[in-house]
């Protein structure tokens, strides 16, 4: 770390309960190689204990610290201050778009996690039976010579959903992260996931804006995955049309509560 110090103003979005949203300014002396999250934490620790925000791992693995920095979605733990402002400048921090706001910079990520469950990407604390079955969560490659694909880098940070223009207008759109999860899980062996992907809230709402891929901090490339998923759905539809078979109900996930 260098010994340079910058004077930076953090403009933090605040909203508690039913009050009108506003910005609070905090002037901090920071090392420009520190991260935006470090600044937010210092504000909470030394300036305003009522500030609500999320953080955990501090190294882009957990996906908890997603926020908008000067309007753009970022993982604040890996966003150096030097990248978003200069000495004497302003850093505006807002919560993610297209999620229900809980308080200040924290949003309700529940819908995202529930939807990830529905496309076969279970979280460890999921209520779904499958999540607890050891054999469904192999520690190594399922087949000899096949690369083991984990949760394909997606850390469920929600940045893609915040950036997506369709998530902005349709609350029921599954969103890029979920469709990327469905792509990962595969639609051919799972009718439920196929129907979710093929639905009006699935791949057909995507209009190739590619905002999701632009903000993903984790190389998931949801945009490309949705393009591929669309091709798979079309191919499957053609296949069913010409083979005359109805939906193959293999491996149907149980109805969620």
């Amino acid at each position, binding site marked *: 770390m260098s010994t340079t110090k910058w004077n930076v103003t953090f403009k933090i979005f605040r909203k508690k309960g039913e009050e009108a949203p506003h910005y609070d300014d905090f002037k901090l002396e920071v090392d420009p190689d520190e991260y935006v999250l470090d600044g937010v934490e210092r504000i909470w620790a030394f300036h305003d204990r009522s500030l609500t925000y999320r953080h955990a791992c501090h190294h882009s693995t957990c996906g908890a610290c997603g926020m908008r920095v000067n309007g753009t979605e970022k993982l604040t733990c890996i966003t150096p201050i030097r990248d978003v402002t200069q000495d004497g400048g302003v850093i505006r921090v807002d919560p993610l778009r297209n999620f229900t706001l809980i308080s200040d910079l924290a949003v309700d990520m*529940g*819908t995202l996690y*529930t939807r990830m469950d*529905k496309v076969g990407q279970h979280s460890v604390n999921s209520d779904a039976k499958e999540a607890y079955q050891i054999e469904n969560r192999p520690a190594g490659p399922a087949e000899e010579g096949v690369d083991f694909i984990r949760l394909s880098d997606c850390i469920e940070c929600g940045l893609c959903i915040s950036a997506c223009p*369709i998530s902005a*207008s*349709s*609350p*029921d*759109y599954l969103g890029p992260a979920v469709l990327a999860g469905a792509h990962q899980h595969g639609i051919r062996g799972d009718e439920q996931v196929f*129907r*979710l992907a*093929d*639905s*009006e*809230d*699935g*791949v*057909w*709402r995507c*209009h190739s804006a590619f905002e999701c891929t632009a903000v993903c901090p984790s190389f998931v490339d949801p945009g490309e995955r949705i393009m591929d998923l*669309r091709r798979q*759905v*079309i191919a499957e*539809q053609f296949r069913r049309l010409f083979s005359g078979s109805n939906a193959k109900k293999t491996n149907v996930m149980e*109805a*969620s*509560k």
Partner: protein
Amino acid sequence: MNNTLYGPKSNEGAWLWFIKAVTGLLVIVILFIHLIVNHFVATNGLLSYADVVRYYQNPIIPIMEIGLVGFAVSHSLIGLRGIILDLKPTRAFIGVINWLFTIIGVGAVVYGIWLIFAIVSKGTGS
């Protein structure tokens, strides 16, 4: 939190998207020809009435123009329906839109075909 299971919604999303893509490509091709003839072949940038009637006597042209009307109207209405769906309308609302757009679409194409035949017939001394 919304606990409803995602049941399959109307299953036509895939086909409509596919038709939109195909009609889009077809429109590009035919429209290009349509533009060249209408603006670059004519001496003053726009075909006169007599030019148009003469142009329509070649049997390829009415076929091409009927195609253009059909593809352009389909692409446009399917696209517009998609934009409305992006706003998550109620099932009832999109049901009305489906009917409305079908009527408008069929109506526009029928009208277009009628008009094309009317123009062709002007040149056969009717």
